[in-house]
């Protein structure tokens, strides 16, 4: 990777691509670091614990999740036998090949993503201009929840996570 970089893209399968955006899962089998829909938002689970009401009560699961797009925290508590919606999250890795013309692993081009207007965008640009070799890690460089459900990307949804030199 001399003058290209890897980017990751968290993406929901659109309904028309064959897979649904969420699927149900028994609450007790959710895992920390996995995903779940809390209060209608796709979240990464950062905390999970169980409790019960009374010694002979049934387990309830307490979850804390971070919205994978806007970083907001959501919490929920639910009987462990219930089903929760799990978002179908896929992270794609892109080869960045020139100015925001992304090359997928399978060779397809993806050009519908604008360079973000935030600091991350500036950073990417300056790194490219300097010819730096770098890697963007753990970055949901992404179509956001709303974009996926509406089917149109407005390019506003790119979120910053971290950018590290290599």
């Amino acid at each position, binding site marked *: 990777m001399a003058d290209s970089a890897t980017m990751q893209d968290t993406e929901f399968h659109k309904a028309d691509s064959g897979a649904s955006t969420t699927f149900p899962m028994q609450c*007790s089998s959710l895992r920390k670091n996995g995903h779940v829909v809390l209060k209608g938002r796709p979240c990464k689970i950062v905390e999970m614990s169980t409790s019960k*009401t009374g010694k002979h009560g049934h387990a309830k699961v307490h979850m804390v999740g971070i919205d994978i797009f806007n970083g907001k925290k959501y919490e929920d508590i639910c009987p462990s036998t219930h089903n929760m919606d799990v978002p179908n999250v896929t992270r*794609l890795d892109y080869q960045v090949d020139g100015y925001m013309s992304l090359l997928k692993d*399978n060779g397809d081009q993806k050009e519908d993503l604008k360079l973000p207007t935030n600091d991350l965008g500036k950073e990417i640009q300056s790194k490219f201009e300097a010819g730096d070799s770098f*890697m963007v890690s753990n970055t949901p460089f992404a179509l956001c929840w709303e974009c996926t459900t509406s089917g149109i990307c407005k390019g506003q949804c790119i979120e910053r996570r971290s950018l590290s030199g290599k």
Partner: protein
Amino acid sequence: MVSPEQRQHAEHIFLSFRKSKSPFAVCKHILETSKVDYVLFQAATAVMEAVVREWVLLEKSSIESLRTFLLTYVLQRPNLQKYVREQVLLAVAVIVKRGSLDKSINCKSIFQEVGQLITSGNPTIQTLACSILMALLGEFSSSSKTSSIGLSMEFHGSCKRVFQEEDLKQIFMLTVEVLQEFSRQDNLNAQMSSVFQKYLALANQVLSWNFLPPNHILSVPKHYMAMLESTQNVTLKPTESWREALLDTRVMDLFFTVRPTYLLAYLSVDLPTYTSPYIPTYLPSCLFTYLPTYLPTYQSLIEMEDSEAVGISNIISNMISMFPRSVLTALPSDLFTSFINCLTLLTCSFGRSAALEEVLDKDDMVYMEAYDRLLEAWLTLVQDDEHFPRGCFVQSAVQVFNGYIQCHLAAPDGTRNLSGNGVTSTEDEEIHEIQEDDRELFSDQLASIGTLGRVAADHCIPLLTSLLEDRVTRLHGQLQRTQQHLMAASDPATVDRKVLDDLYEDIHWLLLVSGCLLADDPQGETPLIPAEVMDFSISHSTEVDINTTLQIMGSPGEKASSIPGFDRTDTVVRLLSAVLRTSEVESRATRASLTTLLSPQMGKDIVWFLRRWAKTYLLVDEKLYQQVSIPLVTAFGADTEGAQWIVGYLLEKVISNLSVWSSEPELANDTVELLVTLVERRERANMVVQCENWWNLAKQFASRSPPLHLLSSSVQRNLMKALVLGGFAHMDADTKQQYWAEVLHPLQQRFLNLINQENFAQISQETAVRQEITATLEALCGIAEATQIDNVAALFSFLMEFLSSCIGLMEVYRNTPETINLIIEVFVEVAHKQICYLGEVKSMRLYEACLTLLQVYSKNNMGRRRGESTAEEDQYQDLLLIMELLTNLLSKEFIDFSDTDEVFRGQDQGTGTTTRPVSAADVVLYGVNIVLPLMSQDLLKFPSLCNQYYKLITFICEIFPEKIPQLPEELFKSLMFSLELGMTSMSSEVSQLCLEALSPLAEQCAKNQDKESPLFIATRHFLKLVFDMLVLQKHSMEMTVAAGEALYTLVCLHQVEYSELVEALLASQRDAVIYQRLADAFNKLSASSTPPTMDRKQKVAFLKSLEEFVSNVGGLLCVK
């Protein structure tokens, strides 16, 4: 309002005032004129600090007049604030103590003065006298209560020794006199009674004195340490000179007439130290007579203070544990009986009060503590019962057992949750997962009750059986009624759970007690049926109809009493049958879709009981017992239909639970533990694999379909472990092959199919793919956990094929930390469980795999940014795992069972000779290269990371000292820095590890003889550190050994530097006497090994004389 700045400024003024030179005149003036309490307090403090600071410069006469001034000052001002008065008296006490070093000052007069104060008869003055004595006790105890006066611990020690021989005894006598005076008076007014209380407290203080042994050579360092610790729960070990004072009958009488709590300290007298005919007759008989007659009346007449419950239980437990057994057995039989009766009454009463405390949810559970102490006492008694008349504890055991059961059953049979006025209180509180289960929370209590239940097996086993049978019948009925209620289309919310919950709670306790009565839970030993239970079964075996017994056991669907002849059955089997019936009622309720009505807690109790029972009773081995019960052996002995039936039943239960209760993690966990128990012993496993259900379970798990894949990861791991263990049961070759084809091959096949897909890298992050990968990795950990010596060959080969694929996954999932951690964990487990069995060639293969893993990890780790500084420990899980892996690899150097010929027969021939060998050292040092730069000081604040890190680097220094000098400069430096840091500023455990690492390093230097090498220079620095540590700082005994060994090897290496250190230390001594003592001590120490060489014999000699050295002069240099 006072601003923080003003406050700081004021503090500063007081602090500098206290440091001012010769402030005596000013302080006197302040004390006499100021009206501000706080200023008075500060003036007293300033006087105290200045006297100590300027002691040598002061005229002895002026010190004495200062002391007189302070004492008179307090005497003339009875209305001083308490804290001011105490501070002034503290100054007096410090002067007295400091003065005891100077023979020129007569400090004995203080006792005469105090004596006069006491006889004054004026309560205010008597209180003051008491305060003076308290202050003196505190100062001379040389404990944490003692003020720092900048003198050596040896000074503190010898002061204490002199004090305890004379002055302390005098204080004791004075106190006793006062108390006698008070106890002769009938009506004490409030003021008098408060003085009385103060003197009782003083007596208590004296009797809790932590006596220093008179011989000051004996293990003194330990005592210097002990002096600095708090003086809680000290056993009174008075010196010989105290004998008469303590055993004076008047003293005894006194203590028996005042409140029993004050006996507490008195009774902890360590009798075995008195071998003369004085006490063993007098004291115990006095006590044993006293307690039974006194305690019951005490309880009914005077409201017992809660705090006294603990005191009384301590007295009794001390009487039972401290007196020699012969004291108890020599008691006249009526006295012994009344003592035992009294103990029984008290135990039952405390048990009831403890239950009440629980209902009221009190913070301070004094009765619970007292009850626990008494149960411990019972345990001591009944475990020694061969000394006592046969059966003498049975009645008591029945009562205590009944009492316990009663407190834990709901009304009307029991009193659970009944508060004092008979009102039931039940509240459903939120219980978090971290809260311990009752079986752990009350494990000691349950074990004691179980033991007492065995003592009275004739009563207790039938009692438990009938209670459990009754509750199960009621539960069954209640569930049926609820079902009908629900079928009448009612809202489930209208179901009243109160009756059900009461039954669940009853059954919960009955199961716990039954489990603890029937079996122990020994760690690592073969569990045996308790002798009492076996005897009980044998003694009734002639009246028992075995067929009916078996019929009841085999019909968990039926009520026991519905089977003809049910009253002529073995009760031990009946108790198990009652549990099986509970289990059956639960299972049938789940089949009737009533799961929501059931209690997961009861589900846990059932499988917990069955596991504990199965370990001990299932396939009972007749050879282990002198005599066996025919009913037990017929019901579940080896090669019996009964055993085969139970195995089948338990397996069915496990399978049902795993699907019904997948949403209850703890219950699923207990269930899978039962499964592991069933297969971990070969004999049981042989029966398990004959069940068709077992094969179904295996297939179902391998297909990764619901409901098993819903289970938590730890349950899945354990399930895999059980399935693998089962595979080593006895089967014919075809069956075995088929079994592995069902269990392991699908795992491999699914995994290979997935990762060999062309687009694996693209789909790798899809949820389903990640789940599959995670499940596979968890399963691999489970397989590794199933390793035993006789299956390691097969499992190692199987796992090795996965390890290289796992490394490929490291690349794919480099940005998914949780998956990376799981991959490393597989390596950790394989190394942990298997390395000790692997021969050379196999080890090499594992080393190579680990090395590749580390290389990939290192490459991917570069430039990786972790979370912010607020990061939590689990952010560094990967680092911890890598260190664990390296430590596990190194552990082979300590524990190695490998016998290539035996374990890997015929597998190793002709392989492995051509490849370049990778050694453990290569892998570990490569790993250290990665880990060391990442281990910042911040990370060492996480205890788990810190401990693992130091364990690792100590191992390396011990095993590969020759590799240390070859490390790159930066790495070497940070390793040395880590050692220094660990020695000086970490926990004592870490410090000890680091000290242990030093010897091998010094030995390495000695071999090399390169005086310029960085390691040589580093060891010189360590010499000074260890020297200072041993000579100048407080340290524990364990540390002396570790530090001593390190010191010796370092001294061998740097003899000149060592002499310089000694010279420098001596040169800094101004006192000629101390100089001489130190110089002599050092000479003696060096003489033990001249010249010091790395020779075991000399080293031992050095360590021995080092111990003497520390005892001799260690206290001189350690200052408080």
